[in-house]
């Protein structure tokens, strides 16, 4: 059997001297391989090793400017690093409307559009801006006014579409941002940018940053939980992936823990027959010992994350059944959340779970609702989408408020972008479609840290460009961090030679006008 020449696993190992190089060069090499040179080189290696040891985890490896992963609460100086300042909100709930809700039909009221039905959008509005491939080929850009009437609500007199009767009831508690804008025009980059501050995968999302920076409030439940809403086949469901709740370069223990949207939020919660708690405990203890040994041998920090995850799973065996047991909820809960809330996997059910998680100290809950990608048949699908989400969102804010939790909980409602004023495909009296639109879209926040009852920013008459007070995604995220007591410029993690931030690399600003 002939061994591959580069293979070193043989009795006569291949040395550089066996390489096909000219003999004089080999002679030079041999002359250099003296004992003196060997000792000298060993000394240098020791020196470098000592230096590496001196710098330890801070000099050569990624380290935390925000918080040391090893000591979840206080750093070596006996001081707490985070939050940077006293926060208004301790926790946040993010209602993510994946697909891009059409702002013109919901909250960005444009009364002048009705008169321009089916007229082409003036070229001056669009200027030289690019369109998506889906509508770039259209010969006309016919204006499609909102199909539903708007009315003023609350003491603030905020205009809200009739599609959102429940949202209309709570406008005085909302901070509506009409001028949120993003850089991306398609779902995947836009949704990544919204969640991780970067269009490319591999960066930690907002929830992971919060879990990493602020830590857990309840050791028995994950710090960051993701809830998926069951998809409705009538809607145009864009995929969402675990990249969106990934911890990126942060340790895996900060990634979002997804609960299932079926009746069993976590599978195999109960121990199998014949395995009692103590047996399970002993097994986990032994697994941990083995993992610790691996950690000592290899030194991969991900092993730490694995140990933590086993422990969390064990504790969740007792905490999750209590969390999802809704039998003790009073009638007032069902009155508020509506009948949908009794069906696991609906948006209303998830909102109710989010409230229960807020009570139990989950730092960040993100609820994904897909289906907002209304390229066509807006008139047919938008009422369904609104019916699915409107009451749940209202119930969540109201429930938090009446229970005294809204004072220190931030609720966020946002999609990854907005939709165009002009119709995609044909425009008829009864129906239209809307394409992706990144230059302005409407989002809202409510609760701890933000100013209730304001509408921030102005868009032009076509809800196409921002006229006043733009809020870029990075500014949006910087403001969220601010509400939770974090200075986004100081909240960094050294990775690939950069002080990585949620809001890098382009400078971002906290939107002062949004703050309470």
């Amino acid at each position, binding site marked *: 059997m002939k061994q591959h020449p580069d293979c070193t696993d043989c009795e006569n190992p291949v040395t550089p001297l066996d390489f096909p190089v000219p003999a004089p060069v080999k002679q030079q090499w041999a002359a250099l391989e003296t004992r003196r040179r060997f000792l000298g080189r060993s000394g240098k290696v020791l020196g470098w090793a000592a230096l590496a040891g001196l710098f330890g985890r*801070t*000099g050569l490896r990624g380290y935390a400017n925000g918080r040391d992963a090893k000591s*979840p*609460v*206080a750093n070596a100086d*006996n*001081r*707490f*690093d*985070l*939050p*940077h*300042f*006293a*926060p208004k909100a301790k926790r946040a709930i993010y209602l993510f409307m994946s697909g891009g809700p059409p702002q013109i039909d919901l909250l960005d009221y444009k009364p002048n559009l009705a008169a321009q039905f089916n007229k082409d959008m003036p070229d001056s509005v669009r200027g030289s801006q690019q369109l998506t491939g889906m509508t770039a080929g259209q010969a006309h850009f016919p204006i499609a006014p909102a199909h539903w009437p708007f009315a003023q609500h609350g003491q603030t007199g905020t205009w809200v579409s009739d599609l959102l009767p429940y949202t209309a*009831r*709570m406008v*005085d*508690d909302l901070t509506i941002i009409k001028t949120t804008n993003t850089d991306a025009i398609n779902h995947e980059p836009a949704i990544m940018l919204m969640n991780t501050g970067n269009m490319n995968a591999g960066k930690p999302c907002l929830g992971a940053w919060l879990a990493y920076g602020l830590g857990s*409030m*309840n*050791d*028995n439940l994950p710090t960051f939980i993701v809830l998926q809403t069951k998809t409705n086949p009538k809607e145009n469901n864009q995929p969402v992936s675990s990249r969106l709740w990934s911890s990126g370069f942060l340790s895996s223990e900060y990634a979002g823990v997804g609960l299932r949207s079926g009746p069993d939020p976590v599978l195999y919660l109960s121990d199998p027959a014949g395995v009692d708690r103590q047996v399970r405990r002993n097994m986990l203890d032994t697994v941990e010992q083995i993992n610790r040994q691996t950690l000592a041998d290899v030194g991969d920090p991900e092993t730490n994350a694995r140990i933590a995850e086993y422990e969390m799973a064990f504790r969740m065996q007792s905490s999750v059944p209590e969390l999802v047991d809704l039998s003790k909820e*009073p009638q*007032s809960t069902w*009155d*508020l959340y509506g009948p949908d809330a009794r069906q696991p996997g609906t948006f209303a059910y998830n909102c109710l779970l989010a409230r229960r998680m807020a*009570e*139990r*100290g989950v730092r960040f809950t993100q609820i994904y609702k897909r289906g907002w990608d209304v390229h066509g048949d807006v008139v047919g699908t938008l009422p369904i989408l609104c019916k699915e989400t409107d009451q749940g969102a209202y119930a969540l804010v*109201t429930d938090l*408020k*009446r*229970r*005294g939790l809204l*004072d220190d909980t931030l609720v966020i409602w946002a999609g990854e972008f907005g939709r165009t004023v002009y119709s995609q495909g044909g425009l008829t009296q009864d129906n239209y479609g809307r394409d992706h639109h990144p230059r302005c879209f409407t989002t809202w926040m409510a609760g701890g840290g933000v100013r209730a009852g304001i509408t921030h920013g102005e868009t032009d008459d076509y809800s196409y460009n921002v006229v006043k007070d733009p809020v870029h995604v990075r500014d949006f995220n910087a403001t969220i961090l601010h509400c939770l*007591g974090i200075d986004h410029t100081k909240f960094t993690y050294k990775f690939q030679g950069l002080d990585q931030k949620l809001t890098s690399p382009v400078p971002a600003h906290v939107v002062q006008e949004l703050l*309470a």
Partner: protein
Amino acid sequence: MIAAEKWSAAIRTLRIRSVQAPWLPILALSAFLLTLPLAIPLNGEIHADWLQFLGRFHPSLVHLPIGMLVLLVFLEFTGRNRTGLRDAGSFVLQLGFVTAFLAVLFGILLAYGSGVTGVILTRHMWGGVVLLIELLVCISVRPTWISRKSPRKYPALLAVSFLTLIWTAHQGGSLTHGSDYLTRYMPGPLKEFFPSAVGASDAPYVGSAYARYVHPILDAKCVGCHGASKEQARLRLDFYDLIIKGGKDGAVIVPRNPDGSLLLQRVTLAPTDRHFMPTDGKPPLSPDEIATLRAWILSGASPTATGIPGISKVSEIAELPIQPVGDYSPLMNEIRQMQRSEGAKLVAVSAKPSDGLILRTLDVASNFDDAQLAQFQRFAPYIVEAELARTAVTDACFDTLSKFTNLRALHLEGTAVTGQGLAKLSNLSQLTYVNLSATKVTPGAVAPLKSMPNLRHLYLFETAAQPEAAAVNGGLNGYSGFHH
């Protein structure tokens, strides 16, 4: 003729000096030292870690020149009789200069690396640089003192250097220990001589119009430069007593005379005016804020009045400014131990110790009872928020809680409390939030809370004390007991 002779004599002495003291190198070295802080501007940014790593040796290095200089003074006195000691003086002086140079260098590295800035830091730095130059001159003139050519110059210089040393060292001490380190426990009568040591506090004015409306404006727009860290124009605006005291230009507020009040004059000047405040393009006061200040001064600038005529802010009640609690750092080891244990935790509100601690029981809620709560009494003044929701505490908890003097928020939802003893909380002047939802409290039991002026958020959802409005589904504002 006489004048000419004087001139030539002067030139002669100058020549002699220039022979004895190498003025040119000294001047060059001084110039270098003076430009050092300018070459490495302290712009508040954090720089490379190794700078801080080296810089952190500054506190240990800095004691070398201090020791040397103190020793030198003793040597020069005792050296009158013992020539050996006098000879040693020169060596000690030079060693003192070298170590002082290193200390200054590492100090600048520390400040530059860590991004720390401030008035005290700047004073400390320049003090160090000036001291270095003085020592340099000391070295050069000491030979003239030994040879008795000019017997007075060196002792005078040494005395000046010594005073500079004390002043600089004091600035450094203030940096590490806080500027009130020496005066904090000073006997009362002595404190009179140090006006800055008198502890100003706005605690008595909690809930007043000043605390609600005026203080937040000053805090947001002025205190950055007129506060504890920077005291521009010797004016501080962070506490009422200090605002009234005024600054370098005298009183800044003349009650009932807004136009005669310097404070208002400065913020209403044309933004281009040299005296316009806030300076350096910092955000100016809004017309609303100016109107509030004007109305407050017009009404007499009282710290206790609960309203300002003409200003109604019913819709937007400013939250109480957070009253700083004491520094809990000395108890940190205990707190950290608790963090690691399985029981209830004390977590910091923020990185600022004066923001206080939160008592968190979520992990162990069902086991946490009155006895365990009582164990947290020794942290009582530092706890600003008690999260006792769904714990096993009973009405007995109010005895303990009444000792949490800085408590701002209290969660008792889902507990077995009935409200007996809620009255004991009435001494908690900072308490703004109480959540008694899903408890057995009765309207009668919560009545004592209504007399607490700062309690703005009282939650009684799912209790017998829940107001009528809450029964109507959908009303958003009916759930809380009352709003002030």
